[in-house]
């Protein structure tokens, strides 16, 4: 365990030194601040617009960070051969892989917390009254970003960073269309469409499960158990992808 902690701390420091971390933080915080300026443009929907815009801004910056970092975090170590100096130390390959994930987990946690604080400030300024539960949409964004990061890192093991980014954004889009595919399966008369829809629903995580932004905006909440179930669903996906990633990583040659 101490090996994973040592590695994670090192990778975390490496991450926060990267320009992309700063860019994601600045963009996310800028979206939140800008939302206050956008609010007055709407008619009678000032609060809703400000809340929606700042949550969407946080989501966009965290998802971009997850996909861009995930596609290059491990890949850059392999390409620069920095991995040679670390893997020959007393540690195992699964420990290395898990530490990469853990360091991004910490980085994402830090950034989500910062954005939540900025969001709280904005919400207080526009007089929003749902502050006590405002952390929940950020938890959804956090799980979604972690899932996309693990997927991008997994893909980067055997594809180029460019392909990993493309495939991860595709997963993001398709993952948010899962309810549409479920609707198609229920209502389509064509068996081919039903089959394709069923396959997609089975192999692609339902990212709409973590979209809790509107719950806060409209103050319409689901039972607590449902949020717990969705969180567990997301974390199981992260674990599965990580498991396959470790399986490939332990078999790879680093020439």
């Amino acid at each position, binding site marked *: 365990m101490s090996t994973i902690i040592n590695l994670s701390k090192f990778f975390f*420091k490496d991450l926060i030194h990267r320009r992309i971390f700063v860019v994601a933080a600045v963009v996310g915080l800028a979206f939140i601040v800008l939302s206050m300026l956008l609010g007055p443009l709407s008619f009678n929907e000032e609060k809703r617009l400000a809340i929606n815009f700042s949550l969407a801004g946080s989501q966009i910056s965290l998802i971009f960070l997850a996909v861009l970092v995930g596609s290059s975090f491990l890949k850059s170590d392999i390409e620069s051969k*920095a991995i040679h*100096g670390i893997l*020959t*130390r007393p540690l195992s390959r699964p420990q290395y892989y898990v530490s990469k994930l853990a360091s991004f987990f910490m980085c994402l946690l830090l950034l989500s917390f910062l954005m939540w604080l900025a969001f709280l400030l904005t919400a207080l300024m526009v007089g929003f009254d749902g502050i006590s539960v405002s952390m929940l949409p950020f938890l959804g964004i956090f799980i979604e970003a972690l899932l996309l990061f693990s997927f991008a890192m997994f893909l980067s093991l055997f594809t180029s960073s460019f392909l990993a980014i493309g495939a991860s954004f595709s997963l993001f889009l398709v993952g948010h269309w899962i309810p549409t595919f479920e609707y198609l399966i229920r209502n389509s008369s064509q068996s081919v469409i039903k089959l394709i829809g069923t396959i997609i629903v089975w192999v692609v995580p339902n990212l709409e499960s973590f979209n809790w932004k509107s719950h806060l905006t409209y103050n319409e909440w689901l039972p607590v158990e449902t949020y717990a179930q969705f969180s567990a669903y997301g974390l199981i996906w992260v674990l599965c992808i990580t498991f396959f990633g470790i399986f490939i990583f332990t078999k790879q040659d680093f*020439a």
Partner: protein
Amino acid sequence: MSTVLECSNVTKIFKTGFIPKPVKALDKISFTIPKGKVTGFLGPNGSGKSTFLKVATELIKPSEGKVTFFGGKNFYSVKKDIGFVPEKPAYPVAFSGLEILKFHAAFTGVSKQRIDEVVDLVVLTDAIKRPVGTYSKGMQQRLSIAQALLDEPQLLILDEPLSGLDPDGREILINVIKNYSEKPGRSVFLSSHLLEDLQRICNNLVIIHEGRLLFTGDPEEVFNPNEFRLTIKKSDGIKKIRVNKDGLNTELKKIIDNGDDLHEVVPQNKSISSLYFDLMQNDKSKIEQKRG
């Protein structure tokens, strides 16, 4: 004599290209590295030296055969006893040298005092708190050696540590390697192209060419100070022969009597480079003969 590294029938075949084409990088290589020696690992570019070192350190898996350490143990179980310096050490540029060493020290609980010792050893004291991004190639190489020496390993494996360094940097590294190897029971396995530097520090050699083993052992054993190599141009081509000091006059007379041209008479002095070039030339001739 006990050995620190043993490899038997190590073969590595890479498959490259869209339609995978097999390329044999290592071809049934078997040798041992004796304990307490500095072993030079020689071979031209693309001969498979780095591939072998990566197989030994489990960065790549062999297609056949195995490499074991300290009497049959695999690399994973003895990582703490082996220091490895990769061909191109790469570190996150924002970290200082000291942060890098502290990170590596934490794996095995190395003390702060030991970190200071290795920093002094590789002459990096003045620069150790600077970001690695500001280091020259030689300084990065020295940092990498400091990292490998942290755990006071029994075996130090270095992949081309001297290439691309200025004379001062090379001298520092050679001294570090020499000092390390002088301690009892310490062994070094070092790949390099720099024959003169190897001559100064190595007392054992492994030479490979095109993935095949050409020579392994103490180079002193194959050198005969009383032997000469003659290059003669005959009507059917160039011929090289070795003669003893006693038979030199007879052989020269024979050449004159036959009307052949004598091109060169080279005394077989104790130089790694003469052994290396002889072996390479012989191997190339054999390959050419095979190809017809």
